[in-house]
């Protein structure tokens, strides 16, 4: 194991950046109370995975894997692996669907709660919950 060598850092620079992006995204999702910011964080988190997959299939010096039409390809040419790239196309589509659904939900939440801050929503929901409890208490005998 060659920790803390320049090769360890620069040789894996794509993976380091993947981790930085992933953690940035996760932190925003967890740490921010604004629902739109949470979606932004989720997007950064997902983008980090795209980067992970895309750099995984790339070979240094490798070119786009397009098979020549005449069938005469040069065995000297290195091709990048297209499969992870194709996979991530699917994941990008899924990410777009998730983002749009999340934003649509935020619009509905704003219509109902008149705010998109998690803390304010929690206050409203707690009040509703307490109201239910008091109502239940006044009606019930066995609580």
């Amino acid at each position, binding site marked *: 194991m060659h920790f803390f060598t320049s090769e360890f850092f620069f040789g894996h620079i794509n993976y380091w950046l993947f981790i930085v992006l992933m953690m940035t995204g996760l932190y925003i999702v967890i740490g921010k109370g604004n629902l739109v910011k949470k979606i932004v964080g989720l997007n950064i988190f997902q983008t980090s995975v795209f980067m992970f997959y895309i750099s995984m299939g790339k070979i240094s010096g490798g070119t786009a894997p397009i098979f020549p039409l005449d069938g005469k390809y040069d065995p000297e040419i290195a091709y990048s692996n297209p499969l992870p790239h194709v996979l991530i196309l699917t994941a990008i589509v*899924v990410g777009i669907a998730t983002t749009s659904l999340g934003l649509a939900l935020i619009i509905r939440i704003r219509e109902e709660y008149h705010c998109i801050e998690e803390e304010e929503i929690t206050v409203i929901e707690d009040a509703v919950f307490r109201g239910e409890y008091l109502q239940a208490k006044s009606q019930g005998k066995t609580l």
Partner: protein
Amino acid sequence: MATQTVHHTAMTLSDHLPILQILIPFIAAPLIVFIGQRKLAWPIAFIASATSFVIACLLLSKVIDGSVISYQIGGWAPPLGIEYRVDAANAFVLFLITGIATLVLPYARQSVGSEMPHKTQTLFYALFLLCMTGLLGVTITADAFNVFVFLEISSLSTYVLIAQGSYRDRRALTAAFNYLIMGTIGATFFVIGLGFLYMATGTLNMADLADKLTGQYESRTVQAGFAFILVGMGLKVAIFPLHFWLPNAYTYAPSAVTTFLAATATKVAIYVLLRFVFSVFQPAFLAETSTLEIIFYPFALLAMFAASFTAIFQRDLKRMLAYSSIAQIGYMLLGIALLSETGLMATIIHLFNHGITKAALFMGVGAYVLRSGSSFYVQIQGLGKTMPWTSAAVIIGGLSLIGVPGTAGFLSKWLLVQAALEQGYWPISILIVASSLLAVIYVWRLVETLYLSTPSSEQTIQEAPLSMLLPLWAMALACIYFGFETDITLGAAKAAAQALLAGSSGMMN
């Protein structure tokens, strides 16, 4: 590549059953949207799910003897092409999903009609079918990335289905949003895990992965992949500390949606976990990394007690059942952790039995919501007298939840206790019984509310309509039937457990 002979001899319709299983609900869903008629939406959805159910029964009857059906999509041979593979384990889960869907739809007609405005009902049935397609696809596919795609199809439709509860309670929206965040993090973790496995092996076919992973168990890449997959799926399963999305989602979703999700969605995630832990990674890998000791045992036991304990103190029947679901997931994890044939059989049978039990209970809750307006204990006081048929079925479900002999729940808990004793872990078997006592408490509280307290309001409450009672009783009777007639469940679970424990050799033949 070119030298490989393509075995594409699927000529008759029955050879195409695995793909039809997915295609029928998948095509019916957009069909409903394009036709756009509310009156036609329900019949189309019902025909599609009933047909899927027939297909699932046919598939199960073909593989219950332990044989395997491999279907190559488009005639491309695996590992390069995508393969659908049906064996006893997933045929059983397919049977559960389609069976529940076929019974929930007749029930949903009245329930959805009262809980949702007219204009969204057409789309509701389309989404229901899409969700079902996703769950079926996750179960049937033998391609690891395909699992992710289908998982997201089912998840995205699930978020929307849960948000439909906002017409009754706006908290459904925040529940759906939180589930969206958690579910997406889970699915993305799963994809990262798959990426690591692909880096180590260069393949995505599960059987091929299993083969190429052997001998690489000490690789840091493979171990990281396993960890990501476990946490990602753990979020979907709602393994104890990752369960925070579940109670709100189940409580505020429309009753029909809760019934379907509680009976199928977490069960499918458990199946994926089984598939990855036992088929893709082998039991030998588990022996090397101490996953079972550090993760499965403690969290399974914690779930059994903490969630059951929380369930006791709920004021809302629906929320109580949601917490009890988390506790039951603990039992299933425990069966996996015991790492024996009996343990796995217990997990697989409990997966099925708990599916039908919870379906019966949540259907009952939906009937109470329809007639009394909510599922709070104070609202359903004394309903045992005014809604005798609904309440009787709910009590049968409750007994099965405890695991009273003669109900389906008894069989799986009995097997679980046996599996623990086989390993010599008698304290665990005591804990299983002790946590069942907690279930006795919360089910007794339900009995007390329904039968022994006086109704809170003077207004007369009618019995639930027949269209809801029939599916409810079908589920309740299934709880009893599978408690006595154990050949089907035991046979399928035994074949499934053996296939899973055999690992890749079971997948390659």
